[in-house]
């Protein structure tokens, strides 16, 4: 346990903060601390967690992506149109189409980064604008409400009514989220390619001298994020029961904030799936709690900003400094 706290400082600190906020909210609001609310939170956060674990892979590899959320909007729109021409499709074809489109958009980012040697933030700000511009131009901002029936039908995998009348529900997005989380965790911690991604993000020159195919690394990282954003996009359409072209606009910064809060480093080589999930949950819980307390939604962004600053200064700095001092003593 001690060792875990030492090696997983950020995750432990986040867990502590989540615990403190939860305890505070359960005393100051009536229905925060209920199972029903807990599962609601999980349902609400699913899409962001899917995005977040995708973005985590890119951050670990030393890149950044601003375009994935509007990319997911493009995927939603094109997938739904494609499914329409295919005569409806189903979950399998839907996920395959959305995943493939997402990968294609991610690969485009990687191609631009590799081919023209432009840093990822510049490339993805450009593609962010291009994707969003094209989407708004061709759709004229018109939403699609006429979705295939399978996509709008809520899929409840498990439900149970509690004695207080509230429902525990595990819906499809939660299952998909869990699959994405476990897959990403296994990919980055238990496959050779995943470890190469960490190494590449940590020390690109060192990775190159080891003979790691550094060109492939960008494609793998952005491809993975593309896959996650495609899947996340479809899940968001399912959750919202409509495709609104600008529904995900701005989501990239929320997700990025959560991932960084979870301990991923801008600059690469650092970050964990657990931290990333806790980061998204912390933000969701805070938002949920503020709602329940009746705080103005305008105050929300401000409070999240403050939490990120406090959490990062508290969790990262002293722990790392302590470890550095320990290392020096040896």
């Amino acid at each position, binding site marked *: 346990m001690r060792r875990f706290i030492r090696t997983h400082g950020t995750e432990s600190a986040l867990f502590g903060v989540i615990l403190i906020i939860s305890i505070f909210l359960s005393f100051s609001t009536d229905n925060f601390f209920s199972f029903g609310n807990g599962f609601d939170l999980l349902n609400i956060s699913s899409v962001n967690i899917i995005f977040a674990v995708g973005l985590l892979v890119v951050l670990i590899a030393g890149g950044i992506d601003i375009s994935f959320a509007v990319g997911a909007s493009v995927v939603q729109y094109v997938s739904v149109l494609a499914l329409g021409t295919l005569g409806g499709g189903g979950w399998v074809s839907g996920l395959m189409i959305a995943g493939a489109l997402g990968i294609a958009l991610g690969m485009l980012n990687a191609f631009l980064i590799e081919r023209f040697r432009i840093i990822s933030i510049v490339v993805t700000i450009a593609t962010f604008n291009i994707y969003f511009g094209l989407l708004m131009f061709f759709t004229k901002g018109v939403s699609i409400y006429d979705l295939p029936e399978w996509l709008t039908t809520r899929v409840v995998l498990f439900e149970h009514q509690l004695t207080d009348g509230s429902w525990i529900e595990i819906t499809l997005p939660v299952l998909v989220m869990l699959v994405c989380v476990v897959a990403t965790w296994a990919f980055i911690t238990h496959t*050779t390619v995943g*470890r190469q991604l960490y*190494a590449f993000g940590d020390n690109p020159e060192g990775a190159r001298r*080891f003979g790691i195919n550094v060109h492939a690394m960008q494609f793998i990282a952005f491809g993975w994020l593309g896959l996650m954003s495609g899947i996340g996009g479809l899940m968001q359409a399912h959750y919202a029961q409509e495709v609104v072209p600008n529904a995900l606009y701005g989501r990239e910064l929320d997700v990025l904030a959560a991932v960084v809060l979870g301990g991923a480093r801008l600059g690469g080589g650092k970050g964990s799936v657990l931290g990333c999930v806790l980061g998204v949950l912390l933000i969701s819980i805070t938002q949920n709690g503020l709602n329940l307390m009746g705080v103005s939604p305008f105050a929300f962004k401000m409070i999240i900003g403050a939490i990120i600053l406090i959490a990062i200064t508290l969790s990262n700095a002293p722990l790392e400094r302590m470890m550095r001092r320990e*290392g020096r003593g040896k």
Partner: protein
Amino acid sequence: MALTDHTLDSVRPLLSLQNINISFGGVQALKNVSFDVLPGEVHCLAGENGSGKSTLIKIITGVYQPAGGASISFDGQSYDHMSPVVAQSKGIQVIWQDLALFPEMTVAENIAFQTVLGRWPRLVNYRHMRELAIQALDRLGVLLDVDAPLKSFPIAQRQIVAIARALVGEAKVVFMDEPTASLTQSETDHLLNIVRTLSGRGVAVVFVSHRLAEVLDISSRLTVLRDGGLVGVYPTAGMTQSRITELMTGKTFDNHVRAADRTTGSKVLKVDGLTRRGEFDSVSFTVREGETLGIIGLLGAGRTELALTLFGMSKPDSGAITLNGHSVQFQSNRAAIDAGIAYLSEDRLSLGLIQPQSIADNLVISSLHKIQKNGVLSDSRKQQLVAGWIAELGVKIGQQGDAISTLSGGNQQRVAIAKWLATDPKLLILDAPTVGVDVGARAGIFDIVAKLADAGLAIILISDEVPEVYFNADRVLHMAQGQIVGTFDPRSCTLQDIEAAVYA
């Protein structure tokens, strides 16, 4: 060294390169160089910056391809050229100066990193990794927590991790690029012990360095490169540092003690019982006009910390600093600069100069007020000031507007000194002024220092190289563990006296 002579004749080299030529953009970086390494030997590859050492290693490891006509043989097999994959799989390992490690990963993963390489993705076997790492460390006789992240260890341990990593790669020959550059003496000793262990196990070790004092006595042969050509291969028995310097530079250096009696000058700096907890303790000394005071001490002796306090960047816990008869307490280094103290930083590359900016901008950065005219910076005054100092210190430049990074280490250092001289200091603190400066260019730096002292400047020369302070300072203070533990007068002691005290 009869053994060496014997092995030279009869043992087949492990690695042998003949006829190595390579050019970059019309500049021939290596001219007809040959090089060989015997099994299990410790070999020094010496040369100044730009002599072709790194290029040669990169050819051996397959990063660069030599021009046609080259022949490379390793472990009984011939190659036209190497590739990184072949070189590594055959047992050629390089420990680069920057170590090429992954700080966020654990020690085990760093050591056994090659197990996650390969064309096709596989699952990672962490248990196997740990075993390999522990085995490799075991073979070096080192105990490290293999599950801790590498970033929690200081540089000396990281170097050991890099060596252990080479062992996992079944190294037959290990190249070490400037391995002692950032180590303290005891860490260097430990490293040399590890090298002995390696050599004893039949692994050849090649030191690539331009600071060879430490490694000379454990190596058997020395290959010297100069300007991309081979100067020769020598047995190290009987070789001295100054002879190597001559071979590397092709020049003879007339080292003589410059020390003189400077007690007639007025006291510029007087330090009484200066203490900063954990850094230095009860330090007292004076520096007079025209005097060069050498402070010798190993890494971690507190020399740089002392300099930073004199320069107003940290505050002493107790003690007094008197500058030109006035007691001073600096609130910042700006105040110290205004009072006439200049500090040439130890780390020129990252702290002392702003690499992408121009020579002129670097030179005037500490004295911008002098080139103002009606509140705006005057270009003509700047050019005038810069031209004056460039001529004064004999800096070789193309244009004033060229980036400072285009200059050689020696010329960069001259610009850094000029930057401080432009502030009209009374006291100049030089912290390791020859780090990264070629041997040939060092003499030029010290000629400037001597000239400045003659003009009345008080100078503190901080170094960890004994000859540097012995030949160039009027008095030498020996600093260890934050305290002044000895004073030497170069006119009445030998180089060896100081060396014995410092390396004891």
